[in-house]
């Protein structure tokens, strides 16, 4: 049966905040006090961003928001392990990863405000825009990695997806292709225990990490609420990929502390005790405990972090509420790269149609 702790779970930071040694410890030996503070700041900021976006949704400024609450360590730990020239293919919940990639905050919410089909330029931050069809992006990452290998480059493609996604054919096919072509891709599964209302026990009868080895892909199960461990296993997987060792699979065991999206009501399907339980494993508290123990959680530092978080949240809000409305004919843009006779005609007709109201004195009849 699956567990959320146990021997096979890589952990470098106990829930109490003690840094422990372990086979993966060497991968984060360079993470000194200042860098720990940096990771703490990242996690606080993305949680603040998440809260602000959730508030914006509640206030009617966003149509929907998929909170990452509880998954900060998995996303920051892995996200901060990446090199700039690595390329991320994610699902909809990886705003923490996008933050690590340097996304413009306004770009985070364009989709959720309903203004645009995507937020950012994938090539600017080397991260594809969110992909909603569950599992499909794992194949894109694999193909990208195959192309990287063709190019002889040493950058790595990273696919993010959830526990639910592992049931999809596409994710399994991605493992087949990644293994066959020894593609430099890292499969990063955030097992947050739930796929909307479905517990992971419905999707998998064994640890999710147990699946990859059968495809010939080494895997590791990591405490997803331990930012150091997440960083360590990701670094190891990236290094394997860079040095020609092929794909890796990481299961980060974490918890979706919020609803699936702001449209969801988890009280219908999950035991509140479970949430309480996981609060004791909060990824930010855990790092705070370590910083505290090391005398690094000074008031000065936390003030700075909170100020930064507020500042980012304010930028997000400002970007959101001042986003210009899309133009009337924008729906016709970017369907094709080159003019398309039938679509041009539809655009033309619709332009005339809109003009007919103005001709008639404006407004619909």
């Amino acid at each position, binding site marked *: 049966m699956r567990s959320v702790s146990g021997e096979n779970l890589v952990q470098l930071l106990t829930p109490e905040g003690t840094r422990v040694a372990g086979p993966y410890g060497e991968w984060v030996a360079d993470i000194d006090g200042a860098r720990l503070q940096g990771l703490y700041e990242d996690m606080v900021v993305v949680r603040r961003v998440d809260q602000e976006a959730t508030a914006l949704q509640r206030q009617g400024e966003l149509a929907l928001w998929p909170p990452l609450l509880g998954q900060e360590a998995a996303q920051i730990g892995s996200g901060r392990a990446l090199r700039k020239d690595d390329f991320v293919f994610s699902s909809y919940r990886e705003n923490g990863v996008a933050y690590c990639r340097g996304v413009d905050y306004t770009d985070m919410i364009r989709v959720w405000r309903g203004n645009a089909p995507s937020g950012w330029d994938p090539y600017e931050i080397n991260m594809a825009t969110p992909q909603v069809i569950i599992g499909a992006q794992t194949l894109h990452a694999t193909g990208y990695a195959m192309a990287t290998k063709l190019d002889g480059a040493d950058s790595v493609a990273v696919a993010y997806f959830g526990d639910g996604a592992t049931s999809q*054919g596409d994710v399994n096919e991605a493992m087949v292709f990644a293994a066959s072509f020894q593609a430099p891709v890292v499969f990063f599964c955030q097992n947050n225990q739930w796929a909307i209302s479905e517990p992971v026990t419905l999707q998998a009868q064994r640890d999710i990490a147990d699946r990859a080895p059968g495809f010939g892909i080494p895997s590791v199960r990591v405490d997803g609420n331990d930012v150091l461990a997440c960083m360590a296993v990701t670094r190891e997987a990236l290094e394997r990929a860079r040095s020609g060792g092929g794909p890796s699979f990481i299961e980060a065991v974490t918890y979706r502390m919020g609803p699936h999206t702001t449209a969801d009501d988890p009280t219908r399907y999950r035991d509140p005790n479970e949430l309480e339980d996981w609060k004791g494993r909060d990824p930010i508290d855990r790092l705070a405990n370590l910083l505290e123990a090391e005398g690094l959680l000074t008031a000065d530092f936390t003030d700075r972090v909170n100020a930064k978080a507020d500042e980012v949240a304010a930028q997000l809000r400002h970007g959101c509420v001042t986003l210009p409305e899309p133009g009337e004919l924008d729906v016709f843009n970017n369907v094709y790269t080159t003019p398309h006779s039938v679509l041009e005609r539809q655009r033309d007709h619709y332009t005339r*149609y809109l003009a007919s109201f103005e001709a008639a004195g404006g407004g619909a009849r």
Partner: protein
Amino acid sequence: MSTITFGRAINTGLRKAMEHDSKVVLIGEDIGKLGGVFRITDELQKDFGAHRVIDAPLAESAILGTAVGMAYRGYRPVCEIQFDGFIYPAFNQIVSQVAKLHYRTQGRVKMPLTIRVPFGGGIGAAEHHSESPEAYFTHTSGLRVISVSNPQDAFTMIQQAIACDDPVLFFEPKRRYHVKGEVDEEVDLGSFSLEQARVEIPGEDVTLVAYGALVQVAKDAALAAREEGISVEVIDLRSLSPLDFATLEASVRKTGRLVITHEAAMTGGLGAEVAASITERCFYHLEHAPVRVTGFDIPYPPAKMEHHHLPDLDRMLDGVDRVLGRTNSLSGLEGN
């Protein structure tokens, strides 16, 4: 008679079907405790058990594929696809298995599946949550395709669909789920066939054909047109495949003018089939070429732009003007 929402009408219809036939099982994502993301299966798992209301792992091809296997063994699976845009992973099983198995086995194996699909836009949703994929299925031989527009039909036709020995794609206009209407739960399921359209509003000048969420818009447009002295007959197709040409032909022979509307892209949409078939069948009764008022040939746009894409009352009225040769948005253009 009771007044209930569209969503509740389907829920009640599913419940009746399950009570009536123990071989009816539901399968889909989040349909158990949650009752589905639209609550259409609310309480059904509690009342019928997890073996008849099956929360499936997250894989649409498997939902359909295992439903095929259950049908092989005499079950009547009702599959829920969570949103229109998530039906594509199951396309292979639907097109190559569900649609073909009765034919392949020379009539020995029946595939009485019902595939429920909340479809269409107008709810301000994200990508893949507002699509209208029905034309892919109306072009697929071996399937029947239904779309309902009101609580009564939802209640009646979901039961008819489940009772039908052919596979049925059942498209539910999700933006209507919360709309209330009267439902006669004692309705005789045999009182009309699964192939029958309905004249919603009789009229003389123009036939306006719609289905799903656009039926209400079409009715509103007909009322608006009446104020301008134009009598519009509104037809709710209900059966998208096969089309009820008896009803359509009778209407167009009378009006001589046809407008057809849908949210799906124009090219290759159901409107093309209706227009082509009606032209074939009623050419000499037509006073004007059939007019299509549809979504554009674009991916479904972001929420803030969807009102441009979706046919609304004004666009339908413009279509009516066009088919009547009255001043319209394209006046002056040849062969518009």
